[in-house]
């Protein structure tokens, strides 16, 4: 083909793009005229011109002719001509070409030619193109070639992989049916090459139709057993550096991982024997010093370990596998350390070996610190995450935190998410959790995504016990001269909500807190400034003494005339709000944030998202459920609505609505791999205690359902309206509620009335005093899943109080009358909220007793009196609450004519202040 060589060198000698195009056009015209000419071209010329066309195409020019000539080449008897023809077809023919019929015809001829070389060319072409038309034409033919007795081994190999390719592109057209058993028996083929090719096909088919192919298990085991027990020279050419058929062994072990352990005892015994032999061989001295020898040996070993982990049923083998991996953890070969860490990750999730994996913690931590290779360090971090449990969480989190300071940029964000999840999942005391997350922000603030700091705020809001500590810690953290903007956000939010808890200390007095926050203001971005402005208005409510200072700030030109419309609007509105609203209105509008509804940790959702398509299916599923769920909330909003409206940063998605799939308290969905701190199954009484001193509000809310309550009580009777709001756009099916009350103390008559928002009325009669609240059980179907929810109904003994006004003299007389030791209950407890006199008064009034003025000689103290009305009897009760502002403590004393009532009242009230 001198002409081709000349043409190519011409092209390469072209000095410019234009010259090249000119030369190509000349050649195209030449070829066109040759193809169109009257003289019939011989095979050689056709091959030459087709070759030139290919070359021109590969230079980036469109070819719109010559296909016919290429197809003609397919029917040539010469190998080289046929080869060029097939090449042209593979590269240039698209599947909808009209020529496909001619091409298929030529392929058909070659397949039936009995010339193995031609058959292989045809099979390669089918596998390369793999179009649907080809599948339609040959899906029936190829299995026949594959299992025919007289087919050459090399053709069988090609046929197996060609069939696999067609199965992957058009599974519906490849019907194995009658061929199944003969294909499976290829595992017994004499020729190892055929087995090697066939096993890829069988593995793929088994994954799709495990039942039809399950006979392959015993065949695979016997094949494996023959390979494993053979001497290193038995398999001749398939022995690779003294290891018999390593590739095939690996593939056999992979195939077995598609199935559960064999049920047949004999097969299982043989397999366990194989696995033991493989584990034993790892301990033998190497037959060669070459790295290829140990590579091949270990390739089999790692697959064997994967199989053992997959079966997860042989404790003995699992422990041996774990020990073997433990040895590899300290191997000098980096590859082995990498693979050992990776395998251990899966081993850590097995109950048999979790403990054994944990013994390697020091080695793994060391790997995280000292490995030179980032791939290996990443695996070490993954393993630490996998082996973490309650017993070692503190150590692991601490190590991960210290590694973060020097971690590679590429893995920092993932590390941050992992630390955040572990800290949340295994937090026993929440101060540790708060410390960890704040450290996280300090060390790697740039990599702390919004989900992480949203989450810490959700948790602090929902956990009363950590609020004071959180306020103190953020206050300290903010004192660093340079702190990350995320820290300012968390700080602003938490001090805005709970700054009062540390305001008693003169070092963190309201003004100090405010000045500290405001010193960061100018360095922050707009969303953070917006959040800080909201924190300021909350300050005005919490600390009236800061009002003038803050108003000054709001009034300054840089706020009220800020060019950013959001900041300006906030400054204007907050300024106005602080100057015209009365203390009461301000207190209502700026009330403390209500607890966040339970949901899956948004961080976890984020990690799943990061992990790529594998996890996405879950997210997508939830996507559909959530549609319209945010706005369609038809539920009754109770007294909390104003507080919700004052979310400090509307732009911040604190509720994580877009991030987390819904997880209801009692029905954790399959998506929640980790246990969220709030999603404890069972009775939900978060809402319960909030209703001791009030009658209306939202009892419960999650992503699906909101339950609002309105109630009224008179004498020993009560009526409770429950409002069930469906927050989704989908109908709840079989929505049923049942109310059970302990000891039948209360008579309940549930009525359900229809409507878009279902309202239920419960009539309550108090027969005698009680301490256990009735339970409300709700069951309904949503998207096929049964949701089951149990809530404590906020019916407490104090609801049946009749206030009793009395003078100081009467009070003390009655107080003395109730002097039996069991009639008195006393509790001393720490203040959970600000010790604000007005708030205390409001709460005591909400309790239902009469608040008696000028009775106690100490004006700081509160005394109340009331009579509890039950059907059986009336129980008179007296109460005295002594606040100690300095110690932030209260002493509560309750005396009543019945001991159980005193005790219960005391318990209920101790949680309220």
């Amino acid at each position, binding site marked *: 083909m001198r002409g081709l060589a000349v043409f190519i060198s011409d092209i390469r000698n072209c000095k410019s793009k234009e010259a090249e195009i000119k030369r190509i056009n000349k050649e195209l015209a030449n070829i066109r005229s040759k193809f169109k000419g009257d003289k019939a071209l011989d095979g050689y010329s056709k091959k030459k011109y087709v070759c030139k066309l290919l070359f021109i195409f590969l230079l980036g020019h469109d070819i719109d002719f010559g296909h016919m000539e290429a197809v003609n080449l397919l029917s040539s008897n010469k190998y080289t001509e046929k080869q060029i023809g097939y090449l042209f077809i593979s590269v240039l023919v698209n599947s909808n070409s009209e020529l496909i019929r001619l091409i298929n015809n030529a392929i058909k001829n070659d397949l039936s030619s009995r010339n193995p070389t031609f058959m292989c060319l045809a099979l390669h072409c089918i596998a390369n193109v*793999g179009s649907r038309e080809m599948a339609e034409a040959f899906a029936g033919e190829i299995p026949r070639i594959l299992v025919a007795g007289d087919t050459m081994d090399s053709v069988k*190999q090609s046929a197996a*992989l060609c069939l696999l390719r067609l199965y992957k592109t058009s599974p519906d057209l490849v019907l194995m049916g009658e061929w199944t058993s003969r294909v499976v028996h290829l595992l017994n083929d004499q020729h190892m090459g055929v087995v090697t090719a066939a096993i890829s096909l069988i*593995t793929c088919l088994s994954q799709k139709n495990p039942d039809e192919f399950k006979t392959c298990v015993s065949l695979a085991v016997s094949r494996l057993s023959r390979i494993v027990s053979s001497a290193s020279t038995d398999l001749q050419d398939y022995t*690779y550096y003294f290891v018999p058929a390593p590739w095939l062994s690996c593939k056999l072990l992979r195939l077995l991982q598609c199935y559960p352990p064999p049920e047949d005892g004999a097969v299982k015994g043989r397999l366990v024997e194989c696995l033991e032999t493989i584990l034993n061989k790892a301990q033998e001295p190497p037959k060669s010093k070459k790295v290829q020898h140990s590579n*091949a040996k270990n390739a089999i070993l790692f697959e064997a370990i994967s199989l053992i982990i997959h079966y997860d049923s042989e404790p003995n083998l699992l422990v041996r596998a774990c020990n073997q991996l433990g040895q590899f953890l300290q191997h000098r070969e980096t590859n082995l350390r990498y693979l050992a860490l990776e395998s251990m990750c899966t081993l850590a999730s097995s109950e048999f070996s979790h403990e054994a994996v944990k013994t390697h913690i020091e080695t793994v931590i060391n790997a995280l610190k000292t490995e030179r290779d980032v791939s290996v360090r990443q695996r070490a971090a993954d393993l630490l995450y996998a082996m973490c449990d309650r017993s070692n969480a503190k150590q692991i989190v601490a190590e991960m935190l210290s590694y973060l300071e020097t971690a590679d940029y590429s893995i920092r964000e993932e590390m941050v998410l992992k630390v955040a999840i572990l800290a949340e999942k295994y937090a026993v005391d929440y101060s540790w959790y708060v410390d960890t997350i704040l450290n996280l922000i300090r060390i790697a603030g740039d990599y702390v995504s919004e989900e992480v700091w949203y989450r810490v705020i959700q948790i602090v809001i929902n956990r009363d016990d950590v609020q004071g500590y959180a306020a103190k810690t953020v206050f300290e953290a903010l004192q660093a001269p340079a702190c990350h903007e995320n820290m300012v956000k968390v700080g602003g939010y938490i001090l805005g909500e709970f700054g009062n808890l540390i305001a008693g200390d003169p070092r963190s007095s309201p003004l100090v807190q405010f000045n500290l926050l405001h010193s960061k203001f100018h360095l922050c971005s707009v969303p953070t400034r917006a959040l800080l402005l909201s924190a300021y208005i909350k300050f005005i409510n919490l600390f009236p003494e800061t009002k003038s200072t803050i108003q000054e700030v709001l009034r300054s030109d840089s706020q009220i005339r800020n060019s950013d419309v959001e900041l300006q609007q906030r400054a204007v509105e907050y300024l106005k709000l602080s100057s015209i609203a009365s203390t009461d209105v301000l207190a209502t509008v700026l009330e403390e944030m209500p607890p966040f509804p339970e949901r899956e940790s948004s961080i976890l959702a984020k990690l799943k998202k990061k992990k790529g398509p594998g996890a996405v299916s879950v997210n997508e599923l939830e996507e559909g459920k959530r549609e319209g769920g945010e706005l369609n909330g038809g539920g009754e909003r109770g007294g909390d609505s104003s507080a919700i409206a004052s979310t400090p940063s509307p732009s911040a998605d604190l509720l994580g609505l877009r991030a987390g799939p819904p997880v209801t308290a009692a029905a954790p969905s399959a998506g929640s791999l980790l246990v969220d701190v709030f999603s404890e199954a069972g009775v939900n009484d978060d809402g319960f205690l909030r209703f001791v001193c009030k009658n209306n509000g939202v009892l419960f809310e999650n992503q699906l359902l909101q339950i609002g309550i309105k109630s009224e009580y008179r004498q020993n009777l009560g009526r409770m309206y429950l409002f069930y709001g469906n927050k989704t756009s989908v109908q709840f099916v079989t929505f049923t509620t049942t109310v059970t009350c302990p000891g039948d103390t209360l008579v309940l008559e549930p009525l359900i009335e229809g409507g878009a928002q279902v309202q239920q009325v419960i009539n309550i009669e108090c027969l005698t005093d009680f301490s256990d609240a009735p339970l409300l059980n709700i069951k309904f179907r949503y998207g096929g899943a049964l949701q089951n929810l149990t809530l404590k109904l906020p019916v407490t003994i104090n609801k049946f109080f009749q206030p009793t006004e009395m003078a100081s003299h009467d009070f003390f007389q009655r107080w003395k009358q109730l002097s039996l030791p069991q009639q008195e209950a006393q509790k001393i407890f720490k203040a959970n909220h600000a010790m604000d006199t007005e708030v205390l008064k409001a709460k005591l009034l909400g309790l239902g007793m009469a608040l008696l003025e000028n009775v106690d000689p100490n004006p700081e103290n509160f005394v109340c009196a009331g009579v509890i009305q039950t059907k059986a009897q009336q129980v008179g009760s007296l109460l005295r609450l002594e606040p100690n502002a300095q110690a932030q403590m209260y002493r509560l004393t309750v005396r009543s004519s019945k001991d159980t009532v005193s005790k219960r009242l005391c318990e209920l009230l101790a949680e309220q202040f």
Partner: protein
Amino acid sequence: MIKAILIFNNHGKPRMSKFYEHYTEDTEQQIIRETFHLVSKRDENVCNFLEGGLLIGGSENKLIYRHYATLYFVFCVDSSESELGILDLIQVFVETLDKCFENVCELDLIFHLDKVHNILAEMVMGGMVLETNMSEIITQVEAQGKMEKSETLTLLFIWQSMRQSQASRFSSKIS
């Protein structure tokens, strides 16, 4: 399965590429560049595995590579393949090249790209391993060689080497 097999030299010049999934010509070039970028910055003596670049499927896929003198051999595989097994496969591939070319060097890959593709086709088909036995592979390749010689000499290799150089057509003309 094997998603792609790439060979490039220490400077990132592609010497051979074979993709078993469909990508546009542009994306293929980008994948080669990205892969080179990922692999070349790694020290010697670190492990031979790393997560794949974004273009070829990110952490779903692994890059398994070996560095021989001036050339990187990179296999991009999904999770169904054994890492060490693939390392062995690369070794078999290189040893086979070595036997066929008698001391293979980078220039052999440039001038006999067709043969390299033929050898690879005897080992891997559609992303699946066809044969791992070196002598079997060599037998097949030699049989084809004989057939070609018996017919007139094909200049197929020229366009294939052109295809390879086409990526850097005007920047540098190899020979």
